[in-house]
C-alpha cells in the first residue's frame, strides 16, 4: 500500500531543475534512505512534500488524497512530519516544553489560553515518555539552547515524532555529529520508528548509516531519481558509484 506518491513533481529555482519531474513512491511502513550529492534535489523534494516550498508542477498524493496545494498545517494534520538538517528547535523553551508543545498542538490544545500548561499531566507524562525513548529525559528541564549538538539532533527528531505522524521525513539526522554518536542516534530513531509503525524517509550522506539502517535506498542526481533498490543493488549500481561515491568521508 503506497502511503505517498508523487507524479512528475517539479521545482525550478531560476534555471536550475532542483526537482525534475520526479515520480517517487513510498510504501507504508517502510524505512528508506534518500541519498545523493549536494544539490541532487533530496532536500528540495522533502521541502516540496512537507510544504515548505510550493511545487511548480506535478502532484503529491498522500494515502490517495491530493495534497499538492495543501497548507503545512493541513499536512501536519494528515500525519506528515519532518525534522531538519540544520536543527530547528525552540531554543528558549525547555527540552520538555519543546516536545510538550508538539503534543499540545497535535491535540488541538494550543488554543487554550486560560489554563496552565503544567496542569496538563497527560501531556506532561507523554512528553516525559517520549524524552525517555530518545534518552533525553535527564535534560527535560534544561533549556533547549543548552543541549549538546547530538542531543539537539535527537530533540529535533523527537519533536517531529511527538506529532505521531504516519510519514516522517528526517533530514540528515546524524549530520554534524561525531562518528561514534551516529549509531546510537540511528538506533533510537529506528527503534522509535519501528515501534510507532511510522513510515520513515531519511536523507543521509553517511553511506555506512544508509547501508546499515535502510532496507531501501533511493538515489537522486541533478533533480531526478537515479536508482532505487536494496543496499546490494545500490552498491552494485555503476551510475550511483560514479556520481555519489565522491561524498564518502571515510578513508
Amino acid at each position, binding site marked *: 500500500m503506497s502511503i505517498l506518491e508523487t507524479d512528475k513533481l517539479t521545482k525550478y529555482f531560476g534555471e536550475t531543475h532542483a526537482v525534475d519531474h520526479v515520480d517517487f513512491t513510498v510504501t507504508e511502513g517502510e524505512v528508506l534512505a534518500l541519498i545523493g550529492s549536494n544539490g541532487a534535489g533530496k532536500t528540495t523534494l522533502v521541502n516540496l512534500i512537507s510544504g515548505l516550498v510550493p511545487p511548480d508542477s506535478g502532484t503529491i498524493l498522500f494515502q490517495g488524497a491530493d495534497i499538492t496545494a495543501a497548507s503545512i498545517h493541513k499536512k501536519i*494534520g494528515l500525519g506528515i512530519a*519532518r525534522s531538519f538538517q540544520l536543527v530547528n528547535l525552540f531554543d528558549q523553551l525547555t527540552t520538555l516544553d519543546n516536545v510538550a508543545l508538539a503534543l499540545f498542538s497535535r491535540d488541538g490544545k494550543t*488554543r*487554550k489560553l486560560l*489554563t*496552565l500548561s503544567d496542569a496538563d499531566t497527560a501531556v506532561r507524562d507523554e512528553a516525559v515518555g517520549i524524552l525517555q525513548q530518545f534518552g533525553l529525559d535527564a535534560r527535560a528541564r534544561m533549556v533547549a539552547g543548552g543541549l549538546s549538538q547530538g542531543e539537539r539532533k535527537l530533540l529535533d527528531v523527537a519533536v517531529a515524532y511527538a506529532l505521531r505522524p504516519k510519514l516522517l521525513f528526517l533530514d540528515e539526522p546524524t549530520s554534524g555529529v561525531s562518528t561514534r554518536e551516529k549509531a546510537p542516534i540511528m538506533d533510537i530513531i529506528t527503534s522509535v520508528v519501528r515501534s510507532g509503525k511510522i513510515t520513515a524517509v531519511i536523507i543521509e550522506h553517511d553511506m555506512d548509516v544508509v547501508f546499515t539502517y535502510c532496507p531501501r535506498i533511493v538515489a537522486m542526481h541533478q533533480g531526478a531519481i537515479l536508482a532505487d533498490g536494496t543496499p546490494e543493488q545500490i552498491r552494485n549500481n555503476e551510475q550511483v558509484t560514479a556520481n555519489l561515491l565522491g561524498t564518502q568521508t571515510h578513508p
Partner: protein
Amino acid sequence: MNAFPAPPRRVTITALLALLALLLVPFAVPPYQTVLLSYGLVFAIAALGFNLLLGYTGLLSFGHSAYFGVGAYAVAFIVKYLKIESMEVFIVGGILASALVAALFGFLCVRYIRIFFGILTLALSQVLWSLTYKFFWYTGGSDGLRVPTPHLLGGAIRMATGAAEDKLGFLSHSYYYYVLAFFVICVAVMWVIVHSPFGKALQAIRDNETRAEFVGVQVWRYRWVAFVISGVFTGLAGALWVPLNGLTTPDIMHWTFSGEMVFFTVLGGFQTFFGPVIGAIVFNYLKTFAVGYTVYWQMFLGVVLVVLVLVLPSGIVGTANRLALRLRRAPAT
C-alpha cells in the same frame, strides 16, 4: 539565558510581599505620591500587554500608543456622547474599542514579515494620531477632551464633592485601590496566559516560526490573537489612565508615547514576566523627575536605550536575576 529557569516559589513570595507593600501605600505616603504610583501601575498594565507581543511572541511594536489612546478616547466619548460617568462602563468601552482596533491593525500587521512589523505598527498608529488631531469636532483636536472623575462600582463609591482636596483624596484612596485591583487581576490573567499552552505556542513562534508552523501552529493566526490580547490590555490601561489625568489629548496616540512603552519594557527586561512591570514603574518616576531638569528628555531616553541594548540587554529584572543566580552558585565553588 539561564540554563535552568528560576523556581516559582521565590517569585510568589516576592510578589506577595510586593502586593502587601502596595496595599499599604496610601497609609504610608502623601496623596500625591499615591497618585503618582497609580500612573505607574497603569503603565505597568500597558507594559504587560506590550510584552506579550515582544517578550513572548517576538514582535516589537512601535505603535502601541494607538490602543492606549483608543482606550482613553473611548472613555472620553462615553462621557461626551453618552453622558455616562460610570467607571465600569468606561472599562468595558475601553476594552471593546481597543479590541476592535487591535483586531483590525493586527490583521494588517501580522501578515507582513517580522522585521517590518515595527514600522508598520508605527505607521498605523500615526494615522490614528493624525485622524484624532484633525477631526477636532469629535475629538477636541489638540485641546483634547475633559473627563470628569467617574464613580466606581456602579455609583457605590464616588467623590464626596468636586472640590480639589476631595478629588485628590478620592484618587489617592478609592481610585488607587480600584487601579491596584485591576493591576493584580491583569498580572494574574497575563501570568496564566503566558504559562498556558497558547503561551507556549507563542514562545515557540518567537523562537522559531518555521518549526512552529511544522508543529502545526498556524503562526499568523496566533500572532493575531496575541496582538488583540496585547491591544486590549493596553486599551484597558488607557481607560484607567483617563480619570487620573482628567483629560485625554492626541499626544498619547503619538509615536513618542509608543517609544516610551518600548523603553520601559526594555528597561525592566523584556525577557522576564515582571521586568516590564518594574520598568514601567521605575520609568514613571524617572520621567517625573527628569522632565523637570531637561527639555532633551528624548535624547536621554535614546542614550539609555542604546546603552541598555549594548550593555544590559536583559534590563533591570533580567540582570538582577542573573546576579542572583551567580550569587546562589558561588558557595558551591
